[in-house]
């Protein structure tokens, strides 16, 4: 079945870079949190935020194999794929299969939610906190810390499922999914229409937008028109009662 037709480029550079970025970042985030290097953890978290937001934007304006409207399929397509029947199951899938597409969405959702929780959470001793911690109450921040720990376990479970699926395709279906995620290319047993990959400048634009968002968050999300962060704020006027 393999080694037949010419290799088709199906994963564009942004998809691959972001994917392997997650692979590198997740262990770093875990390690920096476990060892109490929270300054580093926050930096990695903002890089994660940039990656996730870039990927979400790329899911709207990226290459066909990167776009949500291309790979998020309805329940019928998923069932057909699982049962190996119908058009979706027989035709070679150039991109995510109907089930894998939702696993991508689940992973991005979990990572995005995890970053969002990290922005407002605080450490057990309250000495370190996320860049948006001042926007929420103490109790919200405490709840966010518990949820941040819980969500990490969910992410871990999804990673295990992801690896199990890769192993299943590798050893049962004799289909290597890792190599294409590195090279971007894979061979198909029959002629397929190669996807028309989106230009890289568009991905750069997504990354710049995402990095700008991360920078704004890093500054504590000051309202637009706010003073420069290095200016001294003025004190709110006091009531007479406050002098008592």
């Amino acid at each position, binding site marked *: 079945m393999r080694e037949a037709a010419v290799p088709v480029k199906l994963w564009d550079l942004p998809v691959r870079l972001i994917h392997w970025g997650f692979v590198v970042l997740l262990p770093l985030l875990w390690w920096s*949190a*476990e*060892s*109490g290097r929270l300054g580093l953890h926050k930096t990695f978290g903002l890089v994660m935020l940039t990656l996730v937001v870039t990927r979400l934007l790329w899911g709207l304006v990226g290459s066909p194999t990167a776009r949500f409207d291309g790979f998020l399929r309805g329940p019928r397509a998923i069932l057909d794929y699982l049962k190996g029947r119908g058009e979706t199951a027989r035709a070679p899938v150039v991109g995510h299969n109907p089930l894998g597409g939702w696993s991508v969405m689940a992973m991005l959702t979990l990572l995005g939610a995890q970053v969002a929780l990290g922005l407002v959470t*605080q*450490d*057990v*001793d*309250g*000495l370190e*906190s996320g860049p948006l*911690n*001042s926007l929420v109450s*103490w109790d919200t*921040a405490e709840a966010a810390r518990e949820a941040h720990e819980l969500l990490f376990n969910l992410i871990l479970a999804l990673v295990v499922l992801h690896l199990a699926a890769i192993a299943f395709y590798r050893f049962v279906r004799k289909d290597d999914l890792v190599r294409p995620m590195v090279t971007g290319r894979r061979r198909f047993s029959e002629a397929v229409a190669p996807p028309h990959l989106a230009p890289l400048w568009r991905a750069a634009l997504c990354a710049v937008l995402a990095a700008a968002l991360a920078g704004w968050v890093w500054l*504590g999300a000051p*309202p637009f028109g*706010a*003073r420069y962060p290095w200016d*001294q*704020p*003025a*004190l*709110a006027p*006091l*009531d007479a009662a*406050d002098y008592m």
Partner: protein
Amino acid sequence: MQFSKLAVCAALLLPATAMVAVAAAPHPAFKLRHDNFEAMGRAMKSTFDQFKKPTPNLATIRKNANVLAAAATKVKGHFPVGTGPEAGVKTEALAAIWARPADFAAATDRLVDTTKGLQAAAAGTDLAKIQAAAGAVGGSCKNCHDSFRKPRG
């Protein structure tokens, strides 16, 4: 028959639960110091939240400074002998508190001094001074946590 079985079970279980209750009743210092530290944590967060606002509220900062100064004086007395990790109660207090009492006293004294400093700074209206004084309080928290609180993870 059914009833008598139940009665025997209850008779056997009651003293057992009572014994467990006695064994599990922790020294009041555990909760006292936990609540005291949490009150300080809340006051610190509330203070630093004000610094992040375009117009920090001095009245809130003063209130927090008072809470911190009052709570700081209690810390030293919240660690009686026997309330360390050996007590079998979940605690992040390290045995170093009792092994190096002079160092621990110095650390709690530093907290008392810096919270008094914050109170003094907050009596005025110089925000830069207040922020520096609040930073010093944070430094005294960290100083003590580094040596006497179980590291996270």
